[in-house]
């Protein structure tokens, strides 16, 4: 039994419709906030999955690009007075460029060597942000970031982004775009090249796949998307500090991908949902949270290496385009 693209298309339409209606259903401001954060994490998780699930490499530095996007956009709007609508793209460009610069040499390495390199890089970025106090105010963080400039449609109305609901639609928009990008990338010749590299990179190379080229492509795109998430974060929470973009955050996103199911598109979405909502539910036992996370990671790999979505897909006998055993 295969999911036909017709079923997928209907599913997507329904999801988008539901998403559009959300702010009318979820009226409690804090709950809407959670949904907004979930969307930001979805962008992070889905982009990291390009690396973990589709190229097959583990990056432990994804949060660094998240941070680069956030700080770039924040600083440009605050210090240079540039509008968010421009700084957003500059931030994405900065993250993408850094992604390319890091990926180009780093992707010569594989597996644990690559993972450690990304970890080291992530730490270097955090240390730099922390110590360039003149620019970034270091560990104290940057408060007073402004939300995106209001959009005025003359004669009609103005969208003011201090309103959480307005922001919701903004984030939803970008999340849909991100998901669309990933979807189109995965289900294409490029996506197949990714798969080939993941499954057997020597064989891929032997049939003419330029493995280095595609690895760098995946890494660069993923970094750019993380930068997008960062810029959105900065102009939503209105305060950023190096602590949000550290190794723990990188690991957090890795968890989302793994628990949800790497190698699928729904997986990271589910993972982001779970790991954004779970801390809320576990609020009472917040101190146990990381212990539980660690244990969950070990358990998931040992018993459910395809994550939740992957395992369900396996059990339903669906033959996905990308699935681990």
């Amino acid at each position, binding site marked *: 039994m295969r999911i036909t693209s017709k079923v997928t298309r209907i599913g997507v339409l329904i999801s988008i419709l539901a998403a559009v209606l959300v702010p009318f259903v979820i009226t409690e401001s804090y709950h809407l906030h959670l949904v907004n954060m979930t969307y930001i994490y979805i962008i992070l998780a889905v982009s990291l999955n390009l690396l973990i699930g589709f190229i097959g490499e583990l990056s432990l530095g994804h949060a660094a690009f998240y941070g680069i996007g956030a700080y770039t956009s924040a600083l440009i709007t605050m210090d240079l007075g540039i509008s968010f609508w421009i700084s957003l793209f500059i931030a994405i460009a900065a993250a993408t460029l850094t992604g390319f610069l890091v990926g180009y040499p780093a992707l010569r390495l594989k597996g644990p060597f690559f993972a450690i390199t990304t970890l080291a890089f992530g730490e270097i970025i955090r240390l730099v942000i922390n110590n360039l106090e003149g620019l970034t105010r270091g560990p104290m963080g940057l408060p007073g970031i402004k939300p995106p400039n209001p959009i005025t449609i003359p004669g009609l109305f103005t969208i003011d982004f201090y309103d959480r609901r307005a922001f919701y639609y903004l984030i939803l928009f970008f999340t849909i775009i991100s998901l669309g*990008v990933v979807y*189109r*990338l995965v289900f*294409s*010749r*490029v*996506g*197949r*090249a990714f*798969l*080939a590299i993941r*499954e*057997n990179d*020597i*064989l*891929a*190379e*032997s*049939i*003419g*796949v*330029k*493995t280095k080229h595609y690895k760098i*492509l995946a890494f660069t795109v993923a970094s750019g998307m993380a930068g997008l998430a960062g810029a959105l974060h900065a102009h939503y929470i209105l305060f950023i500090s190096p602590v949000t973009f550290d190794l723990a955050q990188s690991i957090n996103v890795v968890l989302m991908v793994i628990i949800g199911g790497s190698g699928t598109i729904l997986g990271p979405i589910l993972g982001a949902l779970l790991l954004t909502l779970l801390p809320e539910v576990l609020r009472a036992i917040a101190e146990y949270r990381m212990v539980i996370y660690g244990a969950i990671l070990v358990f998931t790999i040992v018993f459910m290496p395809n994550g939740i979505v992957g395992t369900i897909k396996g059990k339903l006998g669906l*033959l996905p*385009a*990308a*699935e*681990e*055993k």
Partner: protein
Amino acid sequence: MLLETKDVVKNFIGLTAVSHVDMVINRGEILSIIGPNGAGKTTLFNLITGLLPCDHGHIIFRGEDITGLPTHEIAARGIIRTFQTTKIFSHITVLESVTIGRHLRTKSGLVASLFRTKEMKREEKETTEEAVKILEFMNMTAKRDFLCDNLPYGDQRKQGIAIALAAEPTLLLLDEPANGMNPEETIHLMTLINKIRERGVTVVLVEHDMNVVMNISDRILVLDFGTKIAEGTPAEIRENTRVIDVYLGEDLT
């Protein structure tokens, strides 16, 4: 002459795997490379396809010196190989992995894929059609939706060949294709190799199964300890005393 190796050498620590080998592959022929284990046959394949760098010597393909080129460049020029340790794309279906094999012959990149251009959609359709045709050629149509992992061993070896064929090679290098096959499968393999040659592909085999070697080869090359010790038609090789010595009385008929 399609491919020529001139004086190629490959050294590993304490061992010379390939020692000053000069060989020639002619267009449209089926050439077998034989020799005892460790004679350097697979290493030679690795050198030709760029998976290992030559320590000395040159490899000329269609008049172009391809020594030192990266593997994917060599593949792009038409040299495709299969592997002794069965390499396939495990966790996807047979059809999907053959589709991947079409990578070289298609070209949609990042932009085309993101924007789903007409070109791209047309190419996708063609790719699937070509992949289906390859499976038909290999008699694997019935198994097209199987996960590659779930294939029996002999089919996995066939799968490797299917993926290689999808890349439309000019020169196909098969590394021990008959490995682990039963007699019936071996006969099918020989038919397949002949069919492949009929399509205009030059085939070079590394093989231990003398039945296969003697029956389908136009020429045979014999390696021992990294050196070429004999070269000729099956009849000539069968009579060659050096070869017989090397195989110590193994049945060459």
